[in-house]
């Protein structure tokens, strides 16, 4: 009985945390030109997990829309040339919920990470709570960048 109560308690305690992720996911999942997925407890390494919403644009027009929507850096000619040569250009950004309208409405706290790839037209929004999570995400971005080119 005690165990059941504890599970219920843990479930209800986790609800407010998940609400922002779900709102965010549902807000963008309705867009036909985007592929959107929510992964709860995505494994960053053997001990670190984090919730993440993955957004992939189906075409370049949709990616342009994502760049505008999330205020991603507009690429200069040099970086565009790299993409045209088949190389990847990745990005990493620490943001507050206020940066994204749908999250600011939720009054969500915490620090989010926007990371992804211009080549793959992919944006991941990680819902982080600790510096350790943020550091691993950045480290992984660099490792992916090097490995993909090899």
């Amino acid at each position, binding site marked *: 009985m005690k165990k059941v109560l504890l599970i219920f308690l843990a479930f209800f305690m986790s609800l407010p945390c998940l609400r922002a992720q779900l709102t965010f996911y549902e807000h963008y999942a309705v867009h036909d030109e985007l592929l959107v997925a929510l992964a709860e407890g995505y494994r960053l390494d053997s001990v670190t997990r984090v919730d993440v919403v993955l957004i992939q644009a189906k075409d370049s027009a949709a990616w342009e829309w994502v760049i505008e929507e999330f205020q991603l*850096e507009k690429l200069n000619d040099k*970086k565009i040339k790299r993409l045209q040569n088949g*190389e990847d250009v990745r990005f990493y*950004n*620490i943001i507050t919920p206020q940066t994204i309208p749908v999250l600011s409405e939720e009054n969500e706290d915490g620090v989010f990470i926007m990371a992804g790839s211009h080549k793959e037209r992919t944006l991941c929004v990680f819902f982080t709570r600790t510096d350790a999570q*943020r550091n691993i995400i950045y480290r992984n971005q*660099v490792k992916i*960048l090097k490995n993909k*080119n090899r």
Partner: protein
Amino acid sequence: MKCNFIKIAFLCATAACIMTGCKKENEVQPQANTEECQTTMLRYAVDGQWHTLNIASEQELRDLLTSLTQLALQGHTVQIDQPGQDTPSKDTVEFETKDEEEFIEWGMKMAYAGYFVTMWYDEETDTLHGTATKK
């Protein structure tokens, strides 16, 4: 006669001074000992490609500036920057290194300072490149 003697002595002293090189007090002389020589690190970019150079003398700086001016006149984009500032004050900061750990450290520092970090990897030179842009 006495007057002529003074004139000759003065001329000889002047000639000796010219031949040996007159050393005035407080004049900055080039350092012969390279260990004592002060160097300044300077970063410069040609068409967005950044390089770092240790400048050991005014002549080296002049030579570099002459070369960069020539390149600029030929239509290349030239930028000069002095690195080593912990808190970046510019809108865009570029960085390149072959050392993965150094690159991770730089990127995290910039991200926490509120910069948007973009990165790419040059396979040919095995170099990681990063651009940090102020949001």
